[in-house]
């Protein structure tokens, strides 16, 4: 007997899963989202945040480009707050790039992408940081920045308001079946280890790069190729608009201005497992070198951290590898393909097209449940009720200018000074049971995403865990240590200049003053989930300390 039942279980708390949850809820279907980590902690949260105009795919992957065009326009309507209309440039830097131009212009025309060639003088006037090597500039006004965290939280909050439920840090360990029909999932709480059996009529597998692992629990094969991408975060936006190289999509050819930072991306290397994402120095170096070809100041800026995400490329059986593979997506009806009823997978795709993916998979599942309500996710904005979501989270507007802070009284100290997070921005999330640790707070408030990488906000947030959540001191300290540990794993790839000095301050503050390493060493716990392995904060401090 299941512990409780719901209509549809959506596995995976990325943009697709959150989108599907919202879509189900809007069609009036009872739904629950199960995520083994936190929302937006996998592929979505580790994307570079480029809202694709489609320009990047228009030559090699026209179908994906057309989807980007359509979905980009829809997202601008429904997820206004998550999007910053930066526009974008496609820049030719070398002769080969110039040879690519006619195909690019043709592709844009075919896909219906607005693309305008502008003079170099005009481009330099708008973007003074353009490098001297730039030969040609195309202006694509529909490129933008999409905040992946805000997008997922927005979808989830919208679904919750319609009755959907969310369980984070809950892993699906098995399924219950009756003959060929899936009748429920068995989950395990990642923290308490508690097993729960959830009965349902259908399951949507929206676990992206992890789809194969989930399908395997039902002895069904889903071939997803995990392809790693490495990104480097700089502490300020070097340009107003997104910067792309006008060439065959390759490594390090995008610079995205996202809120208060710039993100250099990315690489494409096939990895054996979606959670093994080592970041190599040559990849970081490549990001800086390639970025510097398009923008001045890339190598002089303060690199804050490097991170790696994994693309969930769906193997359509072609011989393609990495970038050659289509960014298109597919809905796999396992009843039809494998004879397993009540189980549907959605694979491939990208964040920009998440809504369409959710619509397609929800459509298949809803039809099976006999629900004929049409999809309305393209018409109803995420924050449809009195902008509740906007009230939940004040965020820096364009150029991260602290606009919401205008006219505000300046009495209260901030929680995170780097990202201007106020106590009232953080507090509502402390009441959300989906939030377990401080990394989860980061994804919802941006606290800890600035130059100091949680050196300061970590202890302030830990304090709020005690005062607002009534956790005991030891638990809050552990939460702080975990937060610093995951931050550290990104920071250690950019140890030079400012960030190296920053690390000295951070370690001095937390390890010397707060004696945090003693606690970390005593516990001897494995590193937090979902990060590549390597030397941790405490080990590094121990190694460099005189004995």
């Amino acid at each position, binding site marked *: 007997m299941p512990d409780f039942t719901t209509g549809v279980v959506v596995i995976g708390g990325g943009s697709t899963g959150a989108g599907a949850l919202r879509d189900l809820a809007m069609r009036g279907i009872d739904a629950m989202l199960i995520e083994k980590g936190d929302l937006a902690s996998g592929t979505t949260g580790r994307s570079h945040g480029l809202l694709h105009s489609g320009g990047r795919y228009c030559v090699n992957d026209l179908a994906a480009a057309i989807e980007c065009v359509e979905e980009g326009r829809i997202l601008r309507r429904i997820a206004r707050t998550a999007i910053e209309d930066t526009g974008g440039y496609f820049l030719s830097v070398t002769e080969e790039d110039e040879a690519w131009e006619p195909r690019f212009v043709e592709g844009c025309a075919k896909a219906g992408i607005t693309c305008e060639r502008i003079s170099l003088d005009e481009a330099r006037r708008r973007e003074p940081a353009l490098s001297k090597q730039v030969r040609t500039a195309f202006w694509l006004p529909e490129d933008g920045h999409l905040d992946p965290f805000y997008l997922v939280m927005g979808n989830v909050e919208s679904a919750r308001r319609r009755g959907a439920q969310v369980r984070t840090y809950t892993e699906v360990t098995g399924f219950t079946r009756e003959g060929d029909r899936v009748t429920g999932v068995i989950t395990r709480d990642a923290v308490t280890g508690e097993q729960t059996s959830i009965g349902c009529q259908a399951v949507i597998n929206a676990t992206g790069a992890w789809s194969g692992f989930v399908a395997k629990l039902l002895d069904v094969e889903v071939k997803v190729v995990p392809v790693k991408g490495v990104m480097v975060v700089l*502490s*300020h936006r070097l340009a107003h608009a997104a910067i792309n190289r006008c060439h065959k999509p390759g490594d390090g050819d995008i610079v995205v201005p996202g809120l*208060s930072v710039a993100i250099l991306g990315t690489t494409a290397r096939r990895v054996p497992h979606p959670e093994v994402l080592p970041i190599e*120095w040559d990849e970081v*170096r490549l990001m*800086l*070198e390639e970025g510097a070809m398009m923008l001045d100041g890339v*190598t*002089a*800026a*303060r*690199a804050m951290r490097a991170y790696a995400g994994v693309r969930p490329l769906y193997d359509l059986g072609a011989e393609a590898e990495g970038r050659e593979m289509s960014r298109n997506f597919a809905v796999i009806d396992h009843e039809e393909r494998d004879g397993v009823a009540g189980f549907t997978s959605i694979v491939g795709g990208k964040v920009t097209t998440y809504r369409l993916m959710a619509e397609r998979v929800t459509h298949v599942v809803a039809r099976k449940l006999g629900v004929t309500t049409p999809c309305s996710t393209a018409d109803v904005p995420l924050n449809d009720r009195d902008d509740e979501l906007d009230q939940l989270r004040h965020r*820096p507007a*364009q*150029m*991260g*200018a*602290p*606009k919401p*802070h*205008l*006219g*505000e*009284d*300046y*009495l209260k*100290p*901030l929680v995170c*000074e*780097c990202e*201007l997070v106020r106590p009232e921005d953080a507090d509502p999330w402390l009441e959300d049971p989906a939030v377990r640790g401080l990394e989860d707070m980061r994804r919802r408030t941006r606290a800890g995403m*600035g*130059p*100091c990488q949680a*050196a*300061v906000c970590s202890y302030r947030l830990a304090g709020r865990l005690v005062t607002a959540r009534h956790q005991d001191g030891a638990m809050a300290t552990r939460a702080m240590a975990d937060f610093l540990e995951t931050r550290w794993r990104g920071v250690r790839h950019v*140890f*030079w*200049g*400012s*960030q190296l*000095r*920053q690390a*000295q*301050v951070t370690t001095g*503050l937390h390890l010397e003053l707060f004696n945090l390493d003693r606690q970390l060493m005593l516990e001897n716990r494995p590193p937090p989930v979902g990060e590549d392995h390597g030397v941790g904060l405490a080990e590094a401090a121990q190694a460099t300390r005189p004995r």
Partner: protein
Amino acid sequence: MISDDLDLITDTVEEQAPVEACTKCTACNTVCPVARSTEIFRGPKYLGPESERYRDQHEATVTAGLDLCSGCKLCEVTCPSQVSIQEYIRRAQNKGAREKGRTLRDWMLGHTRLLSAFGSMTAPLANFGNRNPVVRLAMEKLVGIHRKRPLPRYQWLTFERWFKRRRQQAATLTLPRKERTVAYFYGCWVNYNERRLGEMVVHILERNGVNVIVPKQQCCGIPAVVNSNIDLARTYGVENVRRLSTLPAGVDIIASSTSCGLMLKHDYSHLLDIPGAEPVGSRTYDICEYLWMLHEAGDLDLTFEPLDTRVLYHAPCHLKSHGMGYPATRLLRLIPGVHLEEVDEGCCGISGTFGVKVEKYDLSMKIGSRLFEAVKAAGSDSVLADCETCRMQVEHGAGARSSHPVEILARAYGYR
């Protein structure tokens, strides 16, 4: 990481934009006298490098809290990463004021020289008015100058005219030929309010074989800088740099006001970015700094009259920005019979025109309260401070007599 690979990266402390260098260590907030005294101030770290990351020349400036920065510069002195915290705050203040307009009060306080010239011309009347409770009440209501704040006394005879007169008299005398010549940047305070300090500076320098000349000069610009008017300060600065650049080589510039000296030395070439300011700054010295250099060269006249006096020394915040230590204390310890004690209680709170303003007066007195208590407890003859507004504040808050350190030196040289 292989060391050869580092050639790619130029993010180093020397070359990078200073806002990038902030490591959030919070050292600046811990020394900030305003942050220490009020809960409503987020401190220099927030107003400086952190907000700077979000400031955009095309967007309206967030001004909340900016006006609470008193401009003492202690944050900059303290910053281990050499971040120009004050410059960011000043530029944002200036931009905010440009967008929103300046109040009459801030405009007036920025135009100190104009105001002082007027006060000096109408000295008896101005001084009467400044001490008249009815006038002060009106000033508080209309302009926003706190009624309890004693305003400086104006003198009808300016230092400029005194010096001109003296030179005409001296022309008839035969003065011994001097090896050294200095140009005295006396500043508005000496010119309009405390001519006697200028007289003492001239006397001490001449006694030590230094020829003093007084070039024509404009306000240094610091009152404009701290009243959100960098544009005006720059106009003044350009004029001063132009005039002072024409001084013959080998002529050093002396300032007896801490803040004027700091403007010449540092802010003209940094905050105000005035072309040609660097060579002017590099030959500018604080009066006590210069005299100590004379001493180190073995040229300071040490034939002091012994004094029997116990004095306290308060180091002004802007003096700390000079990065020269406390030369006044070293000098005064050369004089027999001077018992000097340093009161290390931080900022006095007035910060130039900050503590004059009606909404800042209480805060200013609160910041200075530690200093006042210490001065009262010490029960000394007088409190020495290099900065004129510090002296005003100490006299007002602690009820003690306060003077510039050179006054003790002048007394020891028999100047009456």
